[in-house]
């Protein structure tokens, strides 16, 4: 089959599957230079062999699927030394050692998570605002069938939103007929005020404070950042199991508290600049805070919003920066806003946080 070479070592008994049929060949092998001589078959270069992590001592070849050479009894040391060693964990882990590799992987994992969070925040701020607006249009359309639209009320809200926002981040405000005391910012500068908030508010300034808070979310692009984070971290640790899920929930909750606090700061700035008193907003928090007092402490910590008492104090402290407050809406306009969802007052109110 091939020109006979002079074997350097003793002939050693072995078995061979040639990868062509299921027949087992019992034969002898011997070393010759950097090749292995195999009775009845072509010699094989030693560096083409790789150790198989199977039962007993087995070797395969990268270039021939199913080719296996094995030894039932351990071959002499002279031959064994020349054959490739076994891989245990695969790849670089065998070179570094298990504990070293585990430590390095742990550090890398922490870096990757921190890096992803920073990177996603950066990415969210790089996405053009117009794209985000289009995404917002796709998600919420024209606020659906529950939207409350009356021209005078809408005009009053638009006017208020203009006073409270900056020119480079235009927002669009809508009212929906849902009886919860809340407002939300959607991607693309869309803000939904729920009817329950307007019904509960004792003055237009309270609505203005909440609206300014949501405008703060829009300016800091919190919605897009939160969307990207949820998606990105979910992809990253999605395969990690339950421990990772808890971690993710905690991370998002902490992030959310920071964002709320940032939105509150913006809200105060906008109110001050527009000459609207932050005191009514503080009173709104006070009323909400009474419900919160019934909540166990653990929930207050885990909840996505800073405790109401803390927020109330911040808005109260800002009151002295507006020595001569003007009302956010005159009585006629405020009446128009209150009439947007019709006369019937929503029943069964339940509250959420904005």
């Amino acid at each position, binding site marked *: 089959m091939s020109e006979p070479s002079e074997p350097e070592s003793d002939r050693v008994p072995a078995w061979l599957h040639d*990868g062509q049929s*299921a*027949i087992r060949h019992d034969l002898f092998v011997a070393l010759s230079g950097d090749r292995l001589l195999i009775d009845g078959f072509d010699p094989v270069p030693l560096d083409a062999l790789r150790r198989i992590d199977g039962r007993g001592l087995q070797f395969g070849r990268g270039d021939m*699927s199913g080719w296996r050479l094995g030894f039932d009894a351990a071959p002499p040391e002279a031959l064994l030394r020349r054959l490739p060693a076994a891989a245990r*964990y*695969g790849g670089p882990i065998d070179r570094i050692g298990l504990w070293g590799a585990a430590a390095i992987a742990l550090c890398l*994992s922490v870096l990757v998570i921190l890096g992803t969070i920073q990177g996603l925040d950066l990415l969210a701020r790089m996405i053009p605002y117009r794209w985000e607006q289009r*995404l917002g249009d796709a998600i919420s359309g024209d606020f659906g069938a529950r939207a409350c639209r009356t021209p005078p009320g809408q005009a009053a809200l638009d006017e208020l939103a203009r006073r409270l926002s900056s020119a480079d981040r235009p927002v669009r405000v809508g009212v929906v007929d849902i009886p919860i005391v809340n407002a939300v910012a959607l991607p693309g500068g869309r803000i939904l005020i729920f009817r329950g908030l307007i019904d509960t508010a004792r003055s237009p300034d309270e609505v203005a404070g909440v609206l300014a808070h949501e405008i703060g979310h829009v300016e800091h692009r919190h919605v897009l950042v939160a969307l990207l984070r949820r998606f990105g971290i979910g992809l990253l640790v999605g*395969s990690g199991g339950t421990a990772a899920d808890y971690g993710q929930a905690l991370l998002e909750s902490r992030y959310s508290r920071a964002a709320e606090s940032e939105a509150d700061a913006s809200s105060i700035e906008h109110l001050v600049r527009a000459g609207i008193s932050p005191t009514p907003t503080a009173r709104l928090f006070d009323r909400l805070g009474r419900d919160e007092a019934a909540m166990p402490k653990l929930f207050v910590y885990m909840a996505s919003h800073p405790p109401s008492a803390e927020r109330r104090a911040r808005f109260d402290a800002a009151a002295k920066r507006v020595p001569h407050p003007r009302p956010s809406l005159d009585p006629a306009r405020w009446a128009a806003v209150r009439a947007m969802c019709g006369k019937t007052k929503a029943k069964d109110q339940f509250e959420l946080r904005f």
Partner: protein
Amino acid sequence: MADDQAGSAFRFNGNWREFAPIAFTNLLLMIVTLGIYRFWAKTRERRYLWSRTDFIGDPLEWTGTGLELFIGFLLVALLLFVPIIVLQFVVQGLAMRGQIGLAGLLMLVAYAGLIYLYGLARYRATRYRLSRTFWRGIRGGSDDRGWGYALTATWKTAVGAFVFGFLIPWSMTSLWNDRWNRLSFGNQGFAATADWRPIIGRFLLFYLLPIAGCIGGASLLLGSFDPSRPPNPAIFGAFLIGAFAVYFAIGIVAIVYYAAFLREAIGALALNRLQFAFTARTLDWIKLILGHIGLIIVTLGIGLIFIGYRNWSFFIRHMEASGEIDLAGLTQSTTEEPRQGEGLLDAFDVGAF
């Protein structure tokens, strides 16, 4: 332990002390790599389990790699999860605009698509595993990529669900045949002729459950109802136990049926003149599951890393084969080797069997 496998062509000779170092280091590496190591962990586990499984005196060998499983996962993440997330946004947007009909239609189409992909995933995973399983240097596989099978699986699953699911045993056995008749080992094709008739009887037990439940619930109500006395907390407890009993009964019937299904399906599988058989009865399955539960409780959850080992050893210890095999005639498979692993099935999170 060796005795119960004495007459069988299949033999599992691993032991958990040998497996434990693999399982624990796998767990450690998965934790520190945010779970990404799990593809390599699965490969390491399979290499061990296959190498300790003998068929007629020679061990199986697993040649799959962690990298190909990882690539399969990435592909599915890109091609399946991203479209699903986009679809969610679109459906949400349509619903917000009051286009409920269109949103519902889109959901229906997406649901049919998922059934199709599930069929494809099951076939592809079995094909991948066969293509990476070697015995005496010979591997299995198929040139059929399963697009047609997945279409068959979609309509047979839909038909099986008609008339209160009466046709489910038919759809399960006939899809089993459709899958295995496309697969081969070496140069020889599998032949599967599973029949739904022997197992339909056990499947009908599912329909007895609601009847038994109604009778039990009604007698409980009638026996304890007394308007002159305030409600008794014991009755509430009895209802709780009743609800638990319903879940328990559904689980038992599912095991009774599945045990029969697998015996019929594997018993009707042949490779040339080799006939396979599976001997696990309902009681064996119950023992296996109770063992899983006990192990997980006693080890406070760490026992989970041994579940794969226990399942495989259960499977092989109950596999048998009879007939003959012509070693010279069993030559290497010429089928195309799939390039990546079972990412799609992973996404549905189920086993191939």
